[in-house]
């Protein structure tokens, strides 16, 4: 018969005792008041400092993380644009582009990317801090290219990484992503854009691209496109697909803006009519396109990787200010809606922290990423419904950013893979439910 607690329990107790002995933790006796110096602000993202050293669950910043947070917060207070984001599409793109270059120049972009490729070489958890602070400051959104950058980081040759990543991260070179097609939306494997290998002396020298992409964001301003195309003639479904890095100024590429439901023009249809790119622009191996695409989508679905969390925090912060100013509607069914939005946002923020923590070892998003995407979609849609409800007639009398945000929130369950696709993934690949026909 056993005497004394099991080793695991004893281990946790020892650690807890050490921690308390070090004067960390507050416990019931209110130790360590002095370390809690910074006032609460924004959405509860109070900076907290923890000791460096052994791994331990701690939602508080390490001293280095804390320094970074304060530095970024101070920088944002001084440098974040105060003016409203322009509504006119080109002006809007130029405004955001300038902002992204400024963020990079100050050292806040590419935080978790290697220094040699223009990044900052920090743990991936810094991306969460960046998101927190950007949102809490109410600053304009940061660049949304994490998924493209990670695809190049993971699958690019050293030369490709050196060539492309610094310009991408700095926003000097602008990128778009050519995935969806008119006949390949949810069913991406149905894509029909061809990249025909052109041989010279028995080796593939270039690819000739023919087809049409749709919903290519920022394509009209992009210098390069990360393109998914069928490189093996006659191949079907997810076989025979490759990724090419395509300069947008290649002859044979035509780009037509899509006007969205809210009147913006950040998307385009891109037509390829025999556009030819050098075989050196192949990312990864021939036929590896599907794997690269799935990896990229894993990042695109991540709430932190392309900065969604910070946008939601920004909206909530503005609504809470309006609530305090008494300008929101008072109906009883709306009274707790900001508290609800706060809870949903906290659920998402903590989920992001857990996901990023699990990626500290360099691992890449798996099917569990679909959980985060679904959670993000819930938060996005309930937050922006609440925004529309609380502001009442105001956003209806002035067609502008609010309606745009509302439409975006509805599109959140479509782009990057519909919620139906995400639920299929969670059911079949996380919960391991049986597939039909198997």
């Amino acid at each position, binding site marked *: 018969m056993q005497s*004394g*607690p*099991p*080793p*695991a*329990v004893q*281990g*946790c*107790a020892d*650690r807890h*005792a050490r921690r308390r002995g070090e004067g960390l*933790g*507050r*416990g*019931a006796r209110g130790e360590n008041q002095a370390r*809690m110096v910074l*006032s*609460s*602000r924004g959405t509860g993202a*109070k900076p*907290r400092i923890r000791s460096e050293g052994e*791994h331990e*669950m*701690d*939602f*508080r*910043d390490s001293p280095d993380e804390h320094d970074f947070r304060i530095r970024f917060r101070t920088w944002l207070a001084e440098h974040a644009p105060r003016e409203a984001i322009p509504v006119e599409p080109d002006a809007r793109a130029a405004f955001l582009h300038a902002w992204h270059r400024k963020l990079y120049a100050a050292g806040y972009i590419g935080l978790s990317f290697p220094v040699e490729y223009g990044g900052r070489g920090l743990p991936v*958890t810094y991306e*969460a801090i960046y998101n927190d602070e950007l949102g809490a400051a109410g600053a304009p959104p940061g660049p949304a290219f994490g998924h493209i950058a990670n695809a190049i980081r993971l699958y690019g040759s050293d030369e490709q990484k050196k060539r492309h990543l610094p310009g991408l991260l700095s926003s000097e070179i602008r990128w778009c992503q050519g995935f969806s097609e008119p006949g390949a939306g949810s069913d991406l494997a149905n894509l029909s854009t061809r990249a025909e290998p052109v041989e010279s002396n028995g080796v593939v020298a270039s690819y000739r691209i023919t087809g049409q992409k749709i919903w290519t964001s920022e394509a009209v301003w992009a210098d390069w496109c990360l393109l998914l195309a069928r490189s093996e003639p006659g191949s079907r479904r997810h076989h025979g697909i490759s990724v090419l890095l395509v300069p947008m100024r290649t002859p044979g590429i035509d780009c037509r803006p899509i006007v969205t439901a809210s009147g913006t023009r950040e998307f385009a249809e891109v037509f390829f009519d025999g556009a030819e790119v050098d075989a050196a622009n192949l990312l990864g191996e021939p036929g590896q396109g599907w794997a690269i695409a799935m990896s990229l989508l894993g990042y695109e679905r991540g709430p932190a990787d392309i900065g969604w969390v910070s946008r939601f925090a920004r909206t909530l912060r503005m609504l*809470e200010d309006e*609530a305090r100013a008494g300008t929101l509607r008072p109906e009883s069914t709306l009274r*707790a809606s900001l*508290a*609800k939005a*706060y*809870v949903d946002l*906290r*659920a998402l923020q*903590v989920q992001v*922290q*857990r996901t*990023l*923590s*699990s990626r500290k070892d360099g691992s890449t998003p798996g099917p569990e990423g679909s*959980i985060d995407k*679904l*959670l993000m979609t819930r938060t996005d849609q309930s937050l922006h419904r609440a925004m529309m409800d609380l502001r009442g007639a105001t956003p209806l009398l002035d067609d502008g950013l609010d309606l745009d945000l509302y439409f975006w929130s509805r599109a959140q369950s479509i782009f990057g893979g519909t919620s*139906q696709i*995400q*639920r*299929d993934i*969670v*059911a*079949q690949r*996380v*919960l*391991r*439910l*049986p597939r039909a026909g*198997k």
Partner: protein
Amino acid sequence: MDASLTDEQQALRDTVARLAADLAPQSPAGLPPKGSAVAEWGRLAEMGLLGMRIPESAGGMPLSGVEVVLAAEELGKRVVPLPFIGSAICASGLLAAAGASAELLESLSSGRTRLAPVLDRTLARLAHRGEPGVAWDARGADAGLAIERDSGRLVAVRPSADRLNAVDLTRELRAVEASAEVVDIGDVGGALSVDAVNRVLALTMTAICADLVGVMQAALDLSVAHVSARVQFGVPVGTFQAVQHMAAEAQVSVEAARGLAWYAGWAVDELDVPEALLAARTAKAYCSEHAREVIEAALQLHGGVAFTWEHMAHVLVRRALVGRQTLGDEHAQLDAITALRSAAAVP
């Protein structure tokens, strides 16, 4: 920032999981009758789970809120019919904070004494002595623990002999009359500050959240097993997209609820009381709402069989319904959060 478990924490969770599997009722017929004390309490003491919030000087072995959360989830998942949260977390936490005698605390951590917090009849808050209340999680409890309105000191009272016919079949609730007799359980310590009480309440709420996460996970696990095995129209019903999507949404809720419970468990030892309480209320709002969503989805995924007494589903439903309500469901928490957030200073 690191939101993942340490190796020790994972080991602790696994250890508690094994114990919980041992203590788990295998079917509703295996549940202990109301009023039965359930002798296995001692096994929690052996494992150190009863002294998690008692100082070493009083025979305890303090563990952090995160460990409390991990243990509570595993016990919840197996609907273990023992008053871990009521006695070992809430009552022991209150007595430790009040500076109760080492002797009393040691009798709690060793499992010789069990105490149940007394809540008011709405289950929303701790009761004062002299008002009608409910001894919550009172299986085998020697007494209920209420607060003296004037002095702010703890006081042990005797629950009524009549047992409440409460819906939870695993967690016992007993009526405490306004005129309940005071019981001498030893030195219960001095006056508790509002902050001290709130910190214990924050942890209790958080532990209930973790219990709800465990119940949700159990409901989802049962459902996944059922729909994978149950054949209709010649195929497992788990192949139907409507079924798959319901399960997937439940999975999202469970993951998010677990994250908020972890955070609240961490916050209770690491942040100021108002923030720890906000974290607990946030978790409780989320877990209360989604626990109901998930158990309702589980009922649907099971179909008729879940509505039979022999099936564990209703045991989970019952535990979830009472857990939701205890110390405030989402409706109560959202109003409280609105008050906390709108009072927050804006820079």
